[in-house]
């Protein structure tokens, strides 16, 4: 049960909010936990047990990792050393255990299917454990609160990966109010619109191209479809993140935002500071900086970046295409760093030249997303070959790209506008005005109607 499904929108969410609303303050965490379990069980009844086991185990690990030094008597120093040693071992075991479970499922050794949300809740758990170990965070003594943090349904399946510290206070005390619900619902609606009216529609073009076969698309269409996929991915994920933040707000949490107009960035480096920010932040905090970040010289920095990108690629999937994707981005970032050291940034900071970095980004990012999207390497080769006109087309329909532009032109235009900060500005300005709210309500029901029409199937699989 995703957020953009009729069951969630019209059954789960209203019922849950009602129940959550009438629950006394001290019971709210319990209701949220049970609600999240129900939510999870709808989508993934098979692997609910994994979550149910994982949370208490990590709760106890957290308690042990936080074992402070209340040391008495003789041999204080030795005891402390011993304790430190034990904690270190325990942390290593905890990380290895959590990553191990994730890796087993990622590599397909298990059932071949990834339990829903495991990549995300594993990362939340790890961030909590490491923070507790480093003393950044005090341990959570209540299993209920920790379980609520890890499994709360707004962020359970796809993030954002909030750190424990960001929601700690709200786990104790949060405001559940009509004002919050309204504000959250508005944000949620925007996310829903992105997902249902933009991502799912743009996804159709990408699907059409797949059904046609990459051998048989013209070079312009290959680019158009790559752009369509880039937008689809963004609005899908951004929409989901907005919905998550909106839901969180309804419940009284302020979850971190995940995107900051990434396609407006002017380099791959900045792009990934604005795309899936909570993941980038995670890798930066728990991998890049512990490795030394950029403080140990250029070569070491490049190596650290390589580690981050290899891990990021692995996190997304274990097939080779993700490795290509990660390495490509790493190489581009290395290139940008070197150009930056040569002072290239100053060169393109004036006049018309300012457009250059953007054009460069809009050129490389769709290519990188194709490496991300196409898991079969030979198919990937064909697609890139078609993009650059080096692979001969088979049975290419001459005007296919013009047709795609006619059918999807309006969507592309809407998507392009939604990629700029304009929409966010408009939203902030008008969201509390009467016409603005009216429009949002209208859009909400338009989405519900679309979902109803298309059934559970955004791609209309069942209509040939």
């Amino acid at each position: 049960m995703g957020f953009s499904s009729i069951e969630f929108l019209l059954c789960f969410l209203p019922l849950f909010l009602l129940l959550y609303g009438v629950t006394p303050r001290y019971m709210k965490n319990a209701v949220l936990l049970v609600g999240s379990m129900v939510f999870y069980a709808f989508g993934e009844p098979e692997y609910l047990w994994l979550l149910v086991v994982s949370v208490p185990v990590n709760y106890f690990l957290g308690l042990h990792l936080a074992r402070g030094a209340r040391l008495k008597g003789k041999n204080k120093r030795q005891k402390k050393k011993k304790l430190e040693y034990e904690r270190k071992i325990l942390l290593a075991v905890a990380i290895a255990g959590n990553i191990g479970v994730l890796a087993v499922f990622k590599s397909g050794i298990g059932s071949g299917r990834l339990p829903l949300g495991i990549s995300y809740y594993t990362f939340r758990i790890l961030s909590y454990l490491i923070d507790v170990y480093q003393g950044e965070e005090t341990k959570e003594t209540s299993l209920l609160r920790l379980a609520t943090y890890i499994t709360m349904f707004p962020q359970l399946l796809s993030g954002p990966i909030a750190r424990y510290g960001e929601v700690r206070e709200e786990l104790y005390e949060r405001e559940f109010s009509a004002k919050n619900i309204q504000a959250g619902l508005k944000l949620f609606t925007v996310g829903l619109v992105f997902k249902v009216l933009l991502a799912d529609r743009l996804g159709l073009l990408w699907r059409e191209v797949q059904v046609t076969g990459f051998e048989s698309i013209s070079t312009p269409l290959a680019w158009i479809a790559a752009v369509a996929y880039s937008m689809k991915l963004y609005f899908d994920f951004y929409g989901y993140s907005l919905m998550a933040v909106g839901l969180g707000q309804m419940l009284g949490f302020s979850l971190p935002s995940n995107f900051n107009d990434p396609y407006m960035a002017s380099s791959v480096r900045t792009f990934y500071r604005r795309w899936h920010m909570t993941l980038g932040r995670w890798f930066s905090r728990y991998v890049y900086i512990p490795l030394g970040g950029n403080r140990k010289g250029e070569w070491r920095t490049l190596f650290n970046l390589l580690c981050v990108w290899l891990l990021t690629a692995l996190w997304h999937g274990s097939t080779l295409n993700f490795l290509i994707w990660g390495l490509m981005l790493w190489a581009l970032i290395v290139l940008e760093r070197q150009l930056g050291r040569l002072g290239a940034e100053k060169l393109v900071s004036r006049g018309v030249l300012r457009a250059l970095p953007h054009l460069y980004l809009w050129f490389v990012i769709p290519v990188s997303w194709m490496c991300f999207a196409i898991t079969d390497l030979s198919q990937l080769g064909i697609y890139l070959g078609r993009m650059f006109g080096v692979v001969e087309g088979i049975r290419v329909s001459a005007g296919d790209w013009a047709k795609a532009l006619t059918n999807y032109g309006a969507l592309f235009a809407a998507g392009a506008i939604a990629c700029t900060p304009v929409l966010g500005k408009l939203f902030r300005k008008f969201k509390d005005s009467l016409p603005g709210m009216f429009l949002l309500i209208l859009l909400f029901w338009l989405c519900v109607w679309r979902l109803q029409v298309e059934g559970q199937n955004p791609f209309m699989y069942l209509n040939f």
Partner: protein
Amino acid sequence: MIFWAAAGIVYLAAVDDWQVYAKPLEQVKIWYEGVKQEFRQADSVRAEEGMPWADVSGADVVAVSGSEGMTVSGSEGMTVSGTEEILAPETDGTTLPENGGIVPSDGEGMAAPDAGGTVVSTGDVLPTDGMGPAGGEGAAGLPEIPEADGGVVYHTVEDDYFADAVFIGDSRTVGMLEYGGLEETADFYASTGLTVYKMFSSEIVAVEGQRKKISVEQALSQNSYAKIYLMIGINEMGTGTVESFVEAYQEAVDHLLELQPDAILYIQGIIKVTTERSEQGDYINNEGIEARNEALSRLADNERIFYLDVNPEICDETGGMEPSYTFDGVHLKAQYIDIWKTYLKEHAIIKDGQSVDCEPAD
């Protein structure tokens, strides 16, 4: 003697690849059962069958002969690689070997149609009384029997054959329109999601210089065609039964022929989906498609209505569409539409009086 037999068995067991026999054996079995069943039902036709095995790599020759003034004898030449010639009806001394298009629907797979098996004929459609209708009833799931027994003569033609043709259908036909290379030649009344129930009322036909599209009914009343290719039926699988579907299909066929009195109609068997897609668990499955195709094949009278089934050309040994031919398990990728088109070109009916600007296939 025993020694040689034992040595043979050891050789076969150890060295040979047994799997290559599975397909031909299966085909022979299906064919054999079909023939048996057919003869059991049509008791006016006495039959004797024989299946003398040739050698492991060679042909199985099956002779069928009936009484009642009409002699039908078939020979099934089958090699391990899967090329064959099935059931050539022998009438008045004209031998009409059929080509690979009439193999059992789950056989053949990717094997290319036997080039040598294409039709040699006088160019005439043979009389179809006799065993034609009986054949269809006899063999459940065996669309090849009526064709074979009907003695339809198919020609191989060029693209211009389709100049006076219209293709009507769902997204599969849209694929033919977009990637078959016939968009300039033939007319296409095709739309994704088209069903036999709404076929005539759907406003899907674009008219030049007019923004609003007209319905198939209107288009068929305004234009005249010599050939109609119908490929429809997968969207209907979620509703009704095979019977209700075929009933609606029959009505559609009648109405088509009414609107186009001079046309011949090709009923195309619904293209199957991949076995993986079939096992996905919704209503789209190959068993359902086979049941419908079997029923559709019986609508053919082999005079004005002909049944064509491209499935043997595009299916693998599991009986579903070859997975590498498709992304979604349902639609042929653009580059493989040609298989379908070639199949249609090799299964063209040329009526009396029509100029034959194509050589009869050899």
